[in-house]
């Protein structure tokens, strides 16, 4: 119990930030037309590649062979997620741009 209390106390600001950003995340994408579901999913998927920052930090201070291997693998996968995700989203949206006319 005490553990839980101290955990909450030490992290209270960050917990508040998390709570607020949950609502922000929900608010920001509500009322999306279904046309955009796929690109939005793909774009959000690319953003979740932000885990690459963690991979960079870990590889940045790696000193054992295991850390090197796992770290590089994490950076590799994170980059694939980020680069592939953003490029494929752009490719989808590029096609929408081709039409001259907008919806009525």
């Amino acid at each position, binding site marked *: 119990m005490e*553990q839980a209390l101290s*955990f909450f106390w030490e992290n209270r600001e*960050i917990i508040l*930030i998390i709570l607020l*950003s949950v609502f*922000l*995340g*929900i608010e*920001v*994408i509500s009322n*999306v037309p*279904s*046309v*955009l*579901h*796929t*690109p*939005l*999913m*793909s*774009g*959000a*998927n*690319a*953003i*979740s*590649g*932000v*885990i690459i*920052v*963690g991979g*960079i*930090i870990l*590889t940045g201070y790696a000193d054992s062979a295991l*850390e090197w291997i*796992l*770290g590089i*693998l*994490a*950076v*590799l*996968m994170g*980059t*694939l*997620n980020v*680069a592939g995700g*953003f*490029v*494929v*989203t752009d*490719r*989808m*949206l*590029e*096609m*929408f741009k081709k*039409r001259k*006319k*907008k919806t*009525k």
Partner: protein
Amino acid sequence: MLPILILPSTEVVVLEFSYMLAALFFVVGLRFLSHPDTARKGNLWAAAGMLLAIAATLLLYRDGAGAGIPLLNALVILITIAFAGAAGAIIARKVKMTAMPQLVSFFNATGGGASALVALMEFSNPGNESTLVTMIGLVIGSIAFSGSLIAYGKLDGKVGDIFSPFMTYLNILMLAVIIFMVVFVSTGMASPEIMPYLIYALLAVSLLHGYTIVMPIGGADMPVVISLLNSFTGIAAAMAGFIYNNQAMILGGIFVGAAGTILTLLMCRAMNRSLFNVLIGSFGGQKAGADREAGTIKEVNASDAAILISYSKKVVIIPGYGLAVAHAQHICSELEELLEEKGVDVKYAIHPVAGRMPGHMNVLLAEAEVSYDKLVEMDEINPDMPNVDVVLVIGANDVVNPAAIDDPSSPIYGMPIIKAHEAKNVIVLKRGMGKGYAAIENHLFYQDHTRMLFGNAKDTLQKLVMEAKNL
């Protein structure tokens, strides 16, 4: 006396500011992404935020002792990023538009895998105080990794389905084991000697759990599953951010987690099903209760069909995944233009879940340069259906199945459909009499005013174009 403010080094302040800015870019990006006019810009904003977070980390990050990332490590990281970045971009450019859902699933798997690896490495970090958060990150990241890989395999047709009530029990059991292990370790009951083994065991069970969760879910529900796993990846990234107290990771991860969850629910709503039903229901596997007396089908040849559509006033094309797999969207738009020259009013009716992902069909038709105002959403076209002379169903099946309206015993009962059966004539382009993705009998095919035109969608459309030209 005023408290003395201890300012960390300039680098750390700039780094923190960069992370905050990156998080802001992510929100703006997501906001723009949810409007058609700004969507492309939004994607670029999010990408810029990511670039900023990566560059700032490489240049400015300082460890507990205040040391930056050593040059050798930075170089290795840069080379890895350059290599994987180029590979990712090339894959994303080369893959066919029809394979888009698989690709998103694959990229999601890499993100989940990266989260799991980061969490795994964090256990050996003595400075890491929060075992609980690390474990949750490990579990969720691993599930997202293996689950997305299975989803990728299913969409690509490489992995079949396993349907069995046994799987449901297995899933509940595995979840219980995972929760037990997490509680056991985080309450400090595990002795340090067995800790590493427990962590690897947890990794293994979580990976297996991702497999057993996705395995029994029918292919038609994969978009929902990918969206859900996508939000998992976001949460896993946020957990890792929590360990590092890194705002870009926390906020980016949480936004994706929240947005992904909402998107998942929106998709479920488009199919009129609950998330629980998707996860437990094993949709495609059940023997449909709706195998009524099927009746007889009537075939039509291409030249008769061409005459019928050429002399109609109003034609509605309902494209489905069959159109996409046959890569027939270009020839389809050619037929549409030809008919318009003949004075026929042609529209496309798009079901929200047509294709393999919501909005997938819009992307495919946009690729074929079909103009946007030709695409009509289901709710708009349905009231007008009785006035339509001919409906051309191309490779669609479940989204025009009237059982969804009139057969309560059907598994898809209640799903909104395009009311093709109300049109004056229906022509169905289909490869054979095989059932749709949900493996349910479709009575539309047996109606009196329905004609079947069998064959590969692309070949059939080519024939139609030729016949229509000669008229």
